[in-house]
């Protein structure tokens, strides 16, 4: 190979190890998981080989080039050089699953028709061997006429071989149509190419055979065809071509596929043997996991375990972080001379950060669990088991994976809906997904629960706090279901949508990837939350501290609050806060939120939380720290519990108002990133606006009903 820089695309069926190989070649950390449809976007990276830099593209998996879904279209467009005016790749690395060569080779024969130089990798050779499947790479190589390499993606040695194969590739494209369509089919291809594709479309030449074959076989041609001004011309040409195939006694819809599979079987017949009769471990696990009765029970049990664990296992770590910040605050307060800078750092920055970072352990546990579910192959089973229920509520089995990802964060969840074929199913999934209790709500829930739900056990072993926590997750799920059901009434194209999904064999999760993902997500949380919180808490600290007012003596000595010096202090600082800029603003919006049981301090928090939910906690921490005695070790929870209305002496927060607040957070659309991603995925401002309005309105109404209802019932 000349010393030329190449663009190399990784192509293959879903879940064959493309991203694993991409990571090994580029040193990047693309997401890998054991279910079809992990990668839904193109990712690029670079590989340095003998001093030359090559560009590597990781593509979403696809079963064929007759794209029907967005993620599949990306792969096809990249290969024919139509993706954002980019050139066709110089080399396609076809990643095939060695345990399942027939179906994998189908795509391979299509890609080879595009006149792109290829290397074929038979990945997962370890699993093939385990199952007694023997593939004769030499024979397959001879039949296909391109380099074929059996590999195991996690072996360094094998990746080295892949690099060698890339380096010494002659970059000659294979001859198209090596699978030899029989005469009537090949005539039909020619007719459509000459009479329609060449004169009337501006497709690149290399795409002609594939496009012609699609027009011959598929009656459901894609939209770009329907909108073509000379569509009638094409229809006549296609009808003639189809008639010719029928005259030869073939079925135009199946002729291509059957011919390709005939060719494939000739490659694998003696080239690979399989003993698939024996029941594998995977089959045995499935007998339980996808069982009619145990399957759904297990699904619920797994979710329950996950939430219980997040709540209880994370606690010791949270206490440690809390301790750290208290000490950090005190140290800074003591070392720096008293003054504005000292106040700003301690009350603004450190208090704001502490309020949010304390939830890092819970978030890391959450991602730990989700990575394990993704790595083992359970996600696809969950989709299978739940599909029946999901269709009844207007969603799709494939919605399960995005919805579970939504527990972590709505943004990747919304991206993952790309694997859903039908637009209406996909849109509804997107619209209800933000109801799933994402990790940004965790801090708010955790704060409110630990302050206002008694730490007792019910039935002796289930903690009431854990149960409330689980209840909030269920509440989110129920609201998502209800919303989906309602939307289905208004927005449905009535068509049934396919659910052809491959169930991958179970694998041990890659622990390094699980831990990497956990720390990576934790770091992103700290970074993102940190950035917003730093900025907001500095501004907020200023708004909450100025203008400085003198506390009238009668408040400092208020009889209602003299019982403890803590309260006197509290009430004096409370007076100052109330008359600050932030306080003035909070009181301005108070009438609107008072019916929900929130006072003006929560009002300030709510306002900042529309940037991102977790900011709420940082905001409260800052507000409650301003003007406080230095060196205090009172936690935010205690401050909230002890906060009293200076006039009436009534506690500001009750369990009821805490519940009302949590309900508001469960339902309201308070996340700029989600709205931005919805805008991108739906390509219009309409849906993010609809989403923001309906969710926030719903939140207001539900909180109102709960709080007023609770008051009426005497709580």
């Amino acid at each position, binding site marked *: 190979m000349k010393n030329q820089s190449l663009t190399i695309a990784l192509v293959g069926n879903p879940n064959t190890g493309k991203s694993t190989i991409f990571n090994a070649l580029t040193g990047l950390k693309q997401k890998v998981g054991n279910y079809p449809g992990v990668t839904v976007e193109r990712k690029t990276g670079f590989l340095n080989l003998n001093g030359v830099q090559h560009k590597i593209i990781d593509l979403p998996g696809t079963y064929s080039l007759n794209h029907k879904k967005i993620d599949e279209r990306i792969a096809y467009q990249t290969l024919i050089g139509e993706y954002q005016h980019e050139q066709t790749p110089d080399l396609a690395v076809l990643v095939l699953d060695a345990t399942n060569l027939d179906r994998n080779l189908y795509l391979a024969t299509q890609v080879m028709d595009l006149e792109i130089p290829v290397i074929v990798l038979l990945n997962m050779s370890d699993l093939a061997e385990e199952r007694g*499947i023997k593939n004769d790479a030499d024979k397959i190589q001879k039949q296909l006429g391109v380099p074929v390499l059996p590999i195991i993606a996690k072996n360094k040695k094998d990746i080295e071989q892949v690099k060698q194969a890339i380096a010494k590739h002659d970059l000659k494209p294979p001859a198209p149509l090596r699978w030899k369509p029989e005469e009537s089919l090949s005539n039909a291809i020619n007719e459509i190419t000459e009479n329609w594709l060449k004169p009337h479309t501006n497709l690149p030449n290399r795409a002609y055979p594939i496009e012609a074959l699609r027009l011959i076989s598929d009656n459901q041609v894609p939209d770009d065809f329907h909108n073509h001004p000379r569509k009638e011309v094409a229809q006549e040409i296609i009808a003639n071509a189809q008639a010719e195939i029928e005259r030869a006694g073939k079925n135009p819809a199946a002729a291509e596929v059957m011919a390709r599979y005939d060719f494939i079987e000739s490659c694998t017949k003696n080239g690979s043997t399989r003993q698939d009769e024996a029941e594998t471990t995977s089959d045995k696990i499935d007998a339980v996991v996808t069982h009619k009765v145990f399957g759904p029970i297990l699904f619920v049990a797994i979710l329950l375990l996950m939430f219980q664990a997040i709540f209880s296992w994370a606690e010791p770590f949270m206490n440690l972080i809390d301790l750290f910040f208290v000490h950090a605050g005190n140290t800074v307060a003591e070392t720096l001379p008293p003054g504005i800078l000292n106040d700003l750092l301690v009350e603004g920055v450190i208090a704001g950060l502490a309020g949010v970072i304390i939830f890092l352990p819970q978030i890391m546990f959450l991602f730990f669990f989700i990575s394990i579910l993704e790595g083992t192959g359970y996600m696809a089973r969950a989709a299978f088991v739940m599909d029946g229920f999901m269709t009844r509520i207007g969603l799709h089995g494939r919605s399960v994976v995005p919805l579970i990802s939504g527990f972590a964060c709505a943004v990747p969840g919304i991206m993952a809906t790309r694997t859903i074929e039908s637009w209406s199913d996909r849109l509804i999934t997107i619209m209800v997904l933000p109801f799933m209790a994402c990790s940004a709500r965790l801090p708010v829930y955790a704060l409110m629960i630990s302050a206002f739900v008694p730490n007792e056990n019910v039935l002796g072993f289930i903690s009431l706090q854990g149960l409330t926590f689980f209840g909030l997750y269920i509440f989110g799920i129920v609201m998502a279901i209800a919303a989906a059901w309602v939307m289905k009434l208004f927005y449905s194209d009535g068509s049934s949508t396919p659910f052809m999904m491959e*169930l991958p064999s179970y694998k041990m999760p890659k622990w390094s990837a699980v831990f990497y993902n956990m720390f990576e997500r934790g770091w992103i949380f700290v970074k993102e939350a940190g950035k917003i919180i730093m900025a907001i808490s500095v501004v907020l600290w200023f708004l909450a501290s100025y203008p400085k007012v003198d506390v009238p003596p009668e408040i400092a000595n208020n009889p209602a609050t003299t019982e403890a010096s803590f309260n006197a202090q509290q009430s004096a600082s409370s007076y100052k806060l109330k008359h600050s800029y932030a306080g003035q603003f909070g009181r301005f919006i108070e009438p609107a939120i008072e019916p929900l049981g929130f006072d003006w301090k929560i009002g300030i928090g709510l306002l900042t939380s529309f940037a991102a939910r977790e900011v709420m906690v940082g905001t409260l921490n800052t507000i409650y720290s301003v003007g406080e005695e230095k060196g205090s070790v009172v936690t935010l929870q205690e401050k909230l519990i002890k906060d009293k209305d200076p006039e009436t002496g009534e506690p500001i927060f009750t369990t009821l108002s805490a519940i009302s607040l949590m309900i508001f957070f469960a339902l309201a659309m308070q996340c700029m990133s989600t709205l931005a991603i919805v805008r991108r995925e739906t390509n219009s401002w309409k849906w993010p606006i609809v989403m923001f309005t309906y969710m926030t309105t719903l939140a207001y109404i539900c909180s109102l009903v709960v709080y007023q209802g609770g008051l009426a019932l005497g709580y």
Partner: protein
Amino acid sequence: MSTLLSEHKQPGKKRIINIKGANAPRLLEMGLLPGTTVEIIRSAPLGFPIEIKVRGYLLTLRKEEAECVEIE
């Protein structure tokens, strides 16, 4: 005598005779061709989707898709 795959819930092996209907292109691409043997493994909690084994891999099909597969 041919029947539809959707009418079979009992585990067992069956040979495909024909693939027809709206979902045919996808099914064909996935390797379900006339003459291919499929093994019915089980069905999901509410009856559908069903899980089958074809060409050594596991595939799930909804009722509408299973109705496109004619078997012996």
